């Protein structure tokens, strides 16, 4: 597939005013940018988005243009600085909102209203505007002002209770997954709002995205487990090492391998390890026999000597051949060099003045248009890189911009 940057992208005529910071909101606006939207990221003068000061840093040296976290979250965006505490700063936001379809923000609930940039204020300026707020617990309710970090929100979001080993403490997910998931939901919410405006001739809409609720809804099939509890009265505990006969994380010669067992898959596992004779025995030849949890250790004693003699990639290839569900416990290094991701050119090299070209996670989804692929992403912006450009687009003269800069508004 060839690259054709001029081809139409779904959102390349949409402007997003991005008042989000840290992790959840920027993840969402990044996806709108991936689909072609012009995302104008508004940052605090001098220091910018707090993620600019958060590791990992290039060569482990801190600096506003060195954070890998910021860079990853802010591709395909333009950056302008603006002091929202100043009256003129807020007027500029209102001016920008006139030409925008979507505003996404992630301040503490009530902040936007307090500074005169709430939905009620902005819809007076632009009745077709879609505004999406991303917050920890939503815009109202008893926990509205609770303070929390990813770890706390994952715990409250419900999945942590069944994450980890039964005899040990509950475990969080890696990194900031729950926040990112809420950001993804914010992208969907914004698109849904835009859809109403454009396809149903509706007025704009206000979308309230809560990290807590998106986690409680979806992370780790939470809504299925909430139903399961009501069906059975059973609270989801953490599983033991093997949740079903044949399943669990098995050691290999060079690492570990996750395998799914249970009555349906055991026959395939038995064929894979070359012990077909077991299937003649009633305890392994029938679904009921294979479901007996008392026989977990007995079956592991058949599998583990087999996996120990093989690399995790050899086990994976065998699983594919014998239709056994499983996957190696890869490192990030394994992932970046994985033949599947390499064959699909998944990781994208993006050039940046600090780092030179380095690999970023690729697009979530791919549009299949004949002879056309997604255009390459634009690199993450330097702090305030597009301030003058954006201000001149809304009609400010070079002198007016200089005055704003002198007064610390931008």
């Amino acid at each position, binding site marked *: 597939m060839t690259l054709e940057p001029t081809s139409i992208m*779904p959102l390349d005529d949409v402007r997003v005013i991005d008042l989000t910071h840290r992790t959840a909101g920027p993840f969402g606006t990044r996806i709108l940018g991936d689909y072609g939207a012009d995302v104008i990221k508004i940052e605090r003068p001098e220091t910018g988005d707090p993620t600019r000061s958060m590791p*990992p840093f290039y060569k482990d040296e801190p600096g506003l243009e060195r954070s890998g976290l910021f860079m990853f979250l802010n591709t395909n965006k333009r950056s302008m600085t603006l002091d929202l505490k100043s009256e003129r700063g807020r007027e500029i936001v209102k001016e920008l909102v006139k030409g925008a379809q979507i505003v996404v923000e992630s301040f503490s609930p009530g902040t936007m209203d307090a500074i005169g940039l709430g*939905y009620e204020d902005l819809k007076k300026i632009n009745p077709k505007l879609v505004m999406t707020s991303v917050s920890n*617990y939503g815009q109202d*309710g*008893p926990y509205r002002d609770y*303070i929390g*970090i990813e*770890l*706390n929100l994952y*715990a409250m979001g*419900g999945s942590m*209770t069944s994450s980890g080993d039964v005899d*040990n403490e509950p475990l*969080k*997910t*890696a*990194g900031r*997954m729950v926040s*990112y*998931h809420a950001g*993804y939901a914010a992208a*969907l919410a914004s*698109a*849904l709002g835009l859809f*109403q405006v454009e*396809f149903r001739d509706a007025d704009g809409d*206000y*979308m*309230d995205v809560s990290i*807590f*609720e998106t986690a*409680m809804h*979806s*992370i*780790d*099939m939470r*809504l*299925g*487990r909430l*139903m*399961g509890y009501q*069906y*059975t009265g*059973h609270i989801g505990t953490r599983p033991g090492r093997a949740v079903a006969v044949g399943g669990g*994380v098995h050691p290999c010669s060079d690492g*570990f391998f996750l395998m799914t067992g249970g009555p349906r898959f055991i026959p395939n596992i038995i064929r894979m390890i070359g012990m077909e004779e077991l299937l003649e025995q009633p305890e392994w030849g029938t679904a*009921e026999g294979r*479901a007996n949890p008392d026989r977990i250790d007995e079956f592991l004693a058949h599998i583990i000597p087999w996996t120990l003699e093989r690399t995790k990639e050899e086990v*994976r290839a065998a699983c*594919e051949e014998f239709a056994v569900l*499983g996957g190696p*416990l890869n490192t*990030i290094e394994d*992932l970046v060099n994985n033949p*599947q991701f390499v064959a699909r050119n998944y990781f994208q090299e993006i050039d940046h003045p600090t780092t030179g070209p*380095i690999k970023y996670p690729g697009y*979530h*989804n791919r549009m*299949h248009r004949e002879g056309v692929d997604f255009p390459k992403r634009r690199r993450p912006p330097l702090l305030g890189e597009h301030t003058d450009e954006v201000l001149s687009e809304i009609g400010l003269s070079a002198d007016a911009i200089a005055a704003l800069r002198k007064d610390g508004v931008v």
Partner: protein
Amino acid sequence: MAADNSGVNSLGSPNPGNPTQPDPSLPLAGLRIIDFTVVFAGPYGTMQLADWGAEVIRVESTTHFASTTRGMLARPALATVQAQTGMGMGMPDSEPGERPWNRSAVFNAHGRNKLGMTVNLRTEEGQEALERLVAVSDGLVENNLPQSMERQGITWERLSKINPKLIMIRMPAFGLDGPYKGYRTWGNHMEAISGHPLIRTYSDLSPEYAPAGVPSDAASGIGSALAFLMGKRYLKRTGKGLLIEAPTAENFVPLLGEFIMDYSMNGRVWTQMGNNHFYLAPHNVYRTQGEDQWVTIACWNEEQWQALCERMRRPELADDPRFCDNESRFKNKAELDAIIGEWVADKHASWVLDQLQIVGVPSGAVINERDAIEDRHLEHRGFFKRMTHPEAGTHKTPMTPFKSMNNPGVGPRRHSPRLGEDNEYVYKQVLGYSDEEYAEFDKKGHIGMDFDPSIP
């Protein structure tokens, strides 16, 4: 062909006979989606579309049982059902009932607002019904092994000829091409390949204890619904339908973004972090009073740390050289965790949470299913609504994962479709078959509310 074959259902009003009764004012009312999704990632995506008003038609077959979508087995024994409580696989009162496939908790959670039809696509007339459905639909979503779809004739080349305005969303695990195209996995295996469990597992135990949760399905579910809306907008601007590939793995890997960046920038490979933060301390989960009750506590600045010391009635810790700044705390986090752990051990998690929130310390209780169902914040926010399923009873089920001011009260309208529940509506009103033709489909075994007796 009796049905309208203009190719787009064109956002008219929903069909009057639709048994899920979407409100015509819902954002996606009048759109029709063909749903070939299984297990969770795909169904979670089409659930978003159905909730917001699209007519989503699940296409199933009485002769094929997709394991784990409607339970692990079509006809599990009582003992098997009683043993399967985890992962949302439970059934009401832990009994299989007459039709166990209509009683799976996870299916009954995400299938709401969707229609259910059955058809055998391995027959000529089944394929003709599929073609009719494609002609009158706006979208198709599937998340199967690519080859299995292709074997059933579900390919972009064929379907886009029938309906050039179709938006087709395919959600393979790893992609429609590449060496893993035929590699069948679930979300947890895909996550393992993507590096997740090895990063998140315990720092002090063998990776054999690695957890196997599945955040990935949710991300690609949301991503697929977004992809459909993007496809519709592309169609509006270009007049062309679109195939969008939304691989689960490629939707999940960005959730590990900072780990990939650290590897790209510094060659660093993070493993076995457990509940450790990259650099903050305290940042952990602590056992409280009660059975399997825990609370999480973290501090990201000195103010929070000092407030925590005050609240623990240990103000001297704030000046203790072991804990006086984040760097020292991070270095001495084992000692720090022991002190905090001791403070919470004889207290209730909810009490600790309340107390710490009052003084502004980041905290969260580890909430289980019972806590969630009774949670006062979720109650205030109207997170749950009661929904009745004819073969499973009445239960609380979540509304949508985010709220729209224009559309208050969007959420469950009808129970998850029982196998084949809406055949008559789909065949006759959507596909335009006559009573006689429908009887013929029935005679040939396409129509039914039971899986074939040969399926275990």
